[in-house]
């Protein structure tokens, strides 16, 4: 990593020019605008400009009853739509004190983990594509297609699932889904060797990712970074383990972390998490309890007055819903804690001193989804 020369302001505006990376650029994972101030090819200052895909989810929440807000969470972080959907249901259930049957909890865990695998495929392979290797991206897409078919089998849609309902899930999982997931797990395990050797061991890939974009533990704490980006810097924090919710306490899985905190570490953490998610799905499928998939819930819930905060582990970090309710059927205020929002802001601290090519790598390794930031 280059140690940036201390450029005093006088020379700074002669040699330095501004380059807009985005909002329309091949490797910005959505409509993200990074305003770079470059000196030659070395980045002096970076300022992410957001707001291009702001649709006012939090304002919408104040005009809709709790049920009508169900489709919105999946549109915030569209890559982990299922996780956000279950998260919102969990928040309302905690507010109203609804008890979710065990089978519904297991189905929620299975679908969330499948969604996490699909999202990590995008995160890692999009990172590899940012470095110029296009083939792994399409292999990742091929594996992700199986997951989308599986989730379409039960929830009916491929990306924006409205599968969760207050008190459980909309419909039960079918036998076809059960066998399909088993087959998918074996197929995926055989593919890990390919990804491992094509990307992880590849010398060009390692040279492009080692010691690039190092996030230290203190930076992570100060900037509120969570998720695989934080676990790449050596902090073992995963909401599923630290603040167990739904049925996660009943499964045995570890939290992969790396010490270096550079792009390679984050990539390896995400790939290791794939295996952990597959283990969780397997355990969940083995002991899937019988019983109803949805608790007895009134058609339109009216939670008591008060507020509550629920956090859950989305594919990008510790997301959360802070709901303030005033006793009517319409929430008074819903604040969504988007992990990408804080993960993105770390860029301004770690990017100066890198090359232009590294910016694309670091931005890819942090793996943000833009609608989640703009909400």
């Amino acid at each position, binding site marked *: 990593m280059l140690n940036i020369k201390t450029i005093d302001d006088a020379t700074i505006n002669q040699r330095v020019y501004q*380059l807009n990376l985005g909002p329309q650029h091949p490797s910005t994972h959505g409509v993200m605008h990074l305003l770079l101030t470059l000196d030659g090819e070395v980045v002096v200052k970076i300022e992410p400009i957001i707001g291009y895909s702001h649709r006012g989810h939090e304002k919408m929440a104040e005009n809709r009853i709790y049920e009508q807000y169900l489709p919105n969470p999946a549109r915030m972080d569209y890559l982990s739509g299922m996780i956000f959907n279950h998260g919102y249901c969990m928040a309302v259930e905690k507010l109203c004190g609804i008890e979710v049957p065990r089978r519904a909890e297991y189905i929620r865990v299975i679908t969330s983990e499948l969604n996490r695998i699909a999202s990590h495929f995008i995160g890692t392979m999009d990172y590899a594509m940012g*470095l110029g*290797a296009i083939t792994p991206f*399409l292999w990742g897409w091929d594996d992700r297609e199986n997951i989308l078919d599986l989730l379409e089998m039960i929830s009916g849609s491929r990306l924006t699932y409205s599968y969760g309902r207050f008190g459980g899930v909309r419909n039960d999982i079918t036998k076809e889904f059960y066998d399909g997931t088993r087959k998918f797990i074996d197929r995926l395990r055989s593919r890990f060797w390919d990804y491992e050797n094509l990307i992880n061991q590849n010398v060009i890939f390692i*040279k*492009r990712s080692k010691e690039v974009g190092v996030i230290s533990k203190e930076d992570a704490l100060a900037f509120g970074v969570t998720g695989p980006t934080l676990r790449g810097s050596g902090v073992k924090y995963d909401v599923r383990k630290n603040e167990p919710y739904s049925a996660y306490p009943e499964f045995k899985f570890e939290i992969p972390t790396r010490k270096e905190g550079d792009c390679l570490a984050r990539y390896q953490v995400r790939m290791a998490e794939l295996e952990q998610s597959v283990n969780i799905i397997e355990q969940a499928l083995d002991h899937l309890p019988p019983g109803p998939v949805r608790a007895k819930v009134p058609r339109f819930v009216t939670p008591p007055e008060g507020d509550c905060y629920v956090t859950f582990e989305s594919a990008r970090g510790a997301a959360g819903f802070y709901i303030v309710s005033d006793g009517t059927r319409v929430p008074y205020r819903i604040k969504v804690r988007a992990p990408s929002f804080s993960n993105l802001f770390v860029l301004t601290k770690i990017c100066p001193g890198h*090359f232009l090519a590294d910016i*694309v790598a670091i931005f890819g390794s942090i793996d943000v989804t833009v609608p989640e930031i703009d909400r």
Partner: protein
Amino acid sequence: MNITQLPYIKDIYGFLGSDVMSGLVGLLIIAALVPLNVAALVLVERKVAGHIQLRPGPMEVGPHGILQTLIDAVKLLGKEMVTPGLTDKPLYWLSPIIVVAPAFVGFIPLPFSPLVQIKDVNVGFLLIFSFSSIGVISILMGGWASNNKYSLIGAVRSVAQNVAYEIPLLLSVMPIVMMTNTFKLGEIAQAQSGLWFIFYQPIAAIIFFIATTAETNRAPFDLVEGESELVSGFHTEYTGMRFSLFFLAEYTNMVIAAALFTTFFLGGWYGPVLPGAVWFFAKTYFLLFVVMWMRWTYPRIRFDQLMNFAWKVLIPIALVNLFITAIVLKVL
């Protein structure tokens, strides 16, 4: 030695048989065949890329998408050649032409087979390398003239890259010239009747292959038009026919690079049963497949690593190889 040098040709055709005319006829043949060759190459690249990525590649136009590239060429011809404002008009307009012209000239000294060779220029080796370095100026002109920060960065990168890889390119081929002490490609190819030079000079072959991939901005060294960083580098602002000229030049340079590798290391036209030219083209196309194969496997190298790799690895090894060959030749 080629057809036109047979003694009786001159007195039969008189002026028609003279060297100038044969050169002209040769150039005409190149001008006709090379674009077709490039069209086939682009299709093969898209098919190889497709099958590596578990998809069939273009299938729509013609049986199995064979006419896809021709239709693309017609589309590009039809597309309007947009010239963005504030561009440096003369440079912007000249750059695609200058990038294609040297690419065609590179075909003259290539020894396709003992009889089929346009002109066995006695400095064929130098002619190809000097003309191929003209391409860099046009990339710089194109990048600078299109008034776009991304293309400027791409152009500046391409100059540094080509300069850095010209040296190992030449150094890796000097041992061949020392072994055959001639610059005529025909004779170099002829000298490999016994054992191909790749067995004498394996290291030189690897260095030459890496250097030519970098020279033509291909595979892991395609920093000049790195899609995911510089949108598409120096030819971001080019549309229509100008864009396809850049494409044409890139693929022609690739063909020349592969052809050079076969003449220097894989024994030009020598092959067990088939006629010379068939072997020559078989080897060249296999090499082109390897180059395409590499493109869809590796990520892109960062710019400073590119420079380190050239100056700190390729050049020292090439020099050592040259030194050893010199000693061995002296001793034998």
